[in-house]
């Protein structure tokens, strides 16, 4: 069973719909025990970094998720991906979950519209099981104003928008998608399927 972590920050049902469509058993939960029993975790998120971290901490889940990520696969989506890093810089410097080395910074793209919103073409970086079968040049759906800044060794898919923008990041069995796999058509579903099939 895949548990979708509910901490009051968005897009839970879209992710659930996609997992249902793919035939993976999943549950939306904020119960530590249920998260503990799940085989895999998905950390979604829409909103701002500091507020989301506060909500995770208030729910008593920040430390718990970081601990669980040592034992089972974890996938952060959009803001959920950003929270995997050590630091966020949205409004104020905020400590993240620290599961992947790096920080989250505002996109600097002179002459381009912010947020970076729409279907962006991707390039492949380091090999990772979630990007299996994904072709370079495929397009994924992004909506964000902040991006991860991390070592290339942690980046499996990326796009260009006023510089390099990580799309799929990973560290061991911790994964993060800046794009919305649940809104990225067949390519996004393939990435979720790859996650669901991890053993």
């Amino acid at each position, binding site marked *: 069973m895949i548990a979708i972590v509910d901490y009051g920050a968005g897009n839970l049902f*879209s992710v659930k719909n996609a997992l249902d469509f793919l035939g993976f058993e999943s549950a939306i939960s904020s119960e530590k025990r249920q998260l503990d029993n799940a085989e895999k975790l998905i950390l979604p998120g829409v909103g701002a970094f500091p507020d989301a971290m506060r909500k995770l901490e208030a729910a008593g889940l920040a430390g718990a998720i970081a601990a669980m990520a040592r034992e089972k696969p974890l996938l952060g989506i959009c803001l959920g991906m950003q929270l995997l890093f050590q630091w966020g810089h949205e409004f104020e410097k905020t400590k993240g979950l620290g599961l992947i080395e790096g920080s989250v910074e505002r996109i600097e793209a002179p002459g381009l519209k912010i947020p970076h919103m729409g*279907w962006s073409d991707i390039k492949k970086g380091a090999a990772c099981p979630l990007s299996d079968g994904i072709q370079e040049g495929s*397009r994924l759906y992004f909506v964000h104003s902040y991006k991860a800044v991390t070592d290339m060794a942690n980046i499996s898919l990326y796009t260009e928008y006023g510089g390099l923008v990580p799309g799929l990041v990973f560290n061991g069995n911790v994964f993060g998608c800046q794009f919305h796999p649940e*809104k*990225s*058509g*067949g390519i996004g579903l393939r990435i979720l399927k790859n996650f669901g099939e991890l053993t």
Partner: protein
Amino acid sequence: MLAKRIIPCLDVRDGKVVKGINFLGVKDVGDPVELAMLYNKMGADEIVFLDITATHEGRGTMADVVRRTAKNVFVPLTVGGGIRDTDDFRALLRAGADKVSVNSAAVKRPGLISEAATIFGSQCVVVAIDAKLVKPAGSDGAARYNVFVHGGRIDTGKDAVEWAAEAERLGAGEILLTSMDTDGTKSGFDIDMLNAVCSVANIPVIASGGGGQPEDFVDVFRKTGADAALAASIFHYGDMDVSKVKGVLADAGIPVRILY
């Protein structure tokens, strides 16, 4: 690099698609969910539902249409038509919409844009503007376009370009600009009106009204700063499909999302 988006729009009344459509392989030609699934398969980058239901009772059916679509279609969904307050936003977002578009209610009460942006985020607030040329460009200045509301029946006297800029300041994440002069003509998008609005907008602009041939889509992306183009009837009658339009755009060197 971002792709230019092609967005089919479905007019829905009491949970049924309004215009007659005859596609092969669609069981119920009036079912918006089936059509959305078909458009998705053809490569639509986003799907817009415009609710033209007049009665209050019929309104609940739109949330149901969105809910059923969101279980089967995994591209962004935008819903508009008759949105009055943030409760309407919440109901549709909960049902699975990614964006909600507001038109008349925002003109009447611009604060709705900032309220919705604060609660749900700018990325899901689309401001739809129906505009019409009221004074052509001349020696005495630039062309003037006015904002019309209530399905284009009422001239608000508001300048469309100024309204677009104001909507952005209030927190809109996107502008959906429909030219009432080209809408339904299939003679091409309103390049001049789009340029006027794009010149003040720092948020994406969706061009609407007039797309009839694939070349019209090439034109709108070559000649204006529009980020997306929306069309309804041309996709409905089956003589042109989304993938065909995208093929022509790709051949013209315009970045589009092509399904592999």
